[in-house]
């Protein structure tokens, strides 16, 4: 028998001196701080103002990306499973239109459903979340059951949902929404919604079985299946959540604008994916955190506000935006690599 030998000392762990790794968000947080400081310095030089010490600006930085952020929380989970969701921007548009049509005030001259005005907020809320859920479930079911690539399934949904948004009122905007409905879009409420959603799914990903399974599927779907995970059912769940969050984002968008338009949310999916990836989520699956995504979204927000603050010419903004997205990820990849070796 050999077991008596089991006491043989384990290999000297040379690791202890390094201790635990820093969570990967630290690296991206440093990028965020770096960008903010650059703006701060440039601000003093060129505008003679502080970038950061301005209550209003700190609010708008997050406010303007809160809708993107809400989507990005769902998209992050999808990406962790190794998938992608291109449909979220269009689902925003579709749910905005449909939810808003149940939120019109009777004072408005041309409601979509003349019989259904002045409904309590809960009605458009449920309608919007329901539409988002439906879109998500369709995405998830297509991907899980037919095994087509998520890129294609959600690309199809992206095209179709945008079509639904335009078809719903033949392109006319849906306006004259009730104050109750608009409330969720006023002040910092969108920020609150964003952060609450982020918190819930941060917990869900880190401390629940749902989260563990999500990472496992992204890391190795075959191994996950053999380990007893019902991969199909789980994927439907994840895409459904992403859909519901896109629905929520649609409601917030409509409430913020106090109108719904069929073009709402165009290219939001790309910003959301960018926020997730800048925040350290890996497009090959298995890696990513909501905290990172929140920071990623804030980086996008800082960037936009910074442009206006520094009065960057509109024609240069886009050029620079592309460069910053790439640079943020490059710096992050580089820092992570350096820490590793």
């Amino acid at each position: 028998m050999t077991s008596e030998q089991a006491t043989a000392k384990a290999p000297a762990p040379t690791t202890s001196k390094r201790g635990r790794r820093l969570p990967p968000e630290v690296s991206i947080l440093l990028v965020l701080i770096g960008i903010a400081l650059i703006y701060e310095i440039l601000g003093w030089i060129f505008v003679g103002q502080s970038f950061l010490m301005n209550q209003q600006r700190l609010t708008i930085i997050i406010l303007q990306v809160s809708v993107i952020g809400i989507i990005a929380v769902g998209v992050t989970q999808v990406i962790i499973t190794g998938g992608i969701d291109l449909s979220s921007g269009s689902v925003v548009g579709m749910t905005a239109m449909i939810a808003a049509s149940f939120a019109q005030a009777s004072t408005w001259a041309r409601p979509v459903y003349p019989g259904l005005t002045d409904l309590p907020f809960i009605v458009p809320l449920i309608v919007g979340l329901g539409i988002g859920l439906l879109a998500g479930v369709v995405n998830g079911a297509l991907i899980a059951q037919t095994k087509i690539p998520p890129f294609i399934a959600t690309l199809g949904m992206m095209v179709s949902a945008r079509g639904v948004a335009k078809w719903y009122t033949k392109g006319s905007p849906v306006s004259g929404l009730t104050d109750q409905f608009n409330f969720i879009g006023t002040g910092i409420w969108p920020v609150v919604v964003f952060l609450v959603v982020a918190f819930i799914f941060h917990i869900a990903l880190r401390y629940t079985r749902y989260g563990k399974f999500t990472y496992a599927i992204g890391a190795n779907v075959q191994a996950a299946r053999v380990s007893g995970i019902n991969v199909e059912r789980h994927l439907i769940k994840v895409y459904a959540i992403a859909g519901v969050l896109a629905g929520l984002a649609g409601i917030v968008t409509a409430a913020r604008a106090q109108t719904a338009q069929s073009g709402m949310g165009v290219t939001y999916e790309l910003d959301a994916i960018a926020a997730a990836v800048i925040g350290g989520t890996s497009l090959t699956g298995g890696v990513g955190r909501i905290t990172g995504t929140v920071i990623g979204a804030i980086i996008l927000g800082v960037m936009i506000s910074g442009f206006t603050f520094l009065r960057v010419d509109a024609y240069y903004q886009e050029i620079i935006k592309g460069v910053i997205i790439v640079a943020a990820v490059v710096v992050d990849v580089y820092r992570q690599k350096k820490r590793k070796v």
Partner: protein
Amino acid sequence: ANIGVSMAQFDDNFLTVLRNGMQDYAKTLDGVTLQVEDAQNDVAKQQSQIQNFIASKVDAIIVNPVDTDATAAMSKLATAAGIPLVYVNREPVNVNELPAKQAFVASNEVESGTLETKEVCKLLKGKGKIVVMMGELSNQAARQRTKDIHDVIATDECKGLTIVEEQTANWSRTQGADLMTNWLSAGLEFDAVISNNDEMAIGAIQALKAAGRKMDSVVIAGVDATQDALAAMAAGDLDVTVFQNAAGQGKGSVDAALKLAKGEKVEAKVYIPFELVTPDNLSKYQSKN
């Protein structure tokens, strides 16, 4: 008759009114069907749509050009196929050398920004600081309207106006609101907001209100006279907008197309003017558009 229609964009509020005007009008006519396509702001897509119409042998084609510089190629295609062609809403670059069986029903885009800015100038008594919200930079109307603003403040009466900021909010209300908030947070001071469209102007109003700014201390101007804009004007928030008779243009273009299809003669150029809307004449427009 079967008419093919290629619209530059479906998710544009103004063009939607135009499109619906066209379709509503066609419904009242016997035997007229419209096949309306969305070019999604893509010149090439629009060109392909025209070619698809030609392949399907429609009786006439109506085009709302994505890019008015690209109309020469389209005119050529239609001529070669012997199918009548009508341009609507935007003035084609080849307006003066349109072939036979082609016409256009449009408004002169130069007017909209000019009317808007002149009114602002008047309200500010020729003196003050303005911020400009531009539409999508690749869009012709955005460029034209912005240029109009510059042209007007270069005139003698409005020399006292200065542009302190000029940025794009991509035609969008939320981006307009965000842009305004960003300006406010930078401590920008201004007396008027001149926006390329009503949506961004409304966004600006929302942001200004959220920041607690008194709406009578600032002049807000947009273009389009959409329902939302008229409501905002009725509420005393929006000061200036410009009405363009979308339904009228739609109807006019269908009429022209039908006549050309029957081989009748039509006038090659039909201008439908822009009209200034202020709180004074607001009631006249509330039932339109």
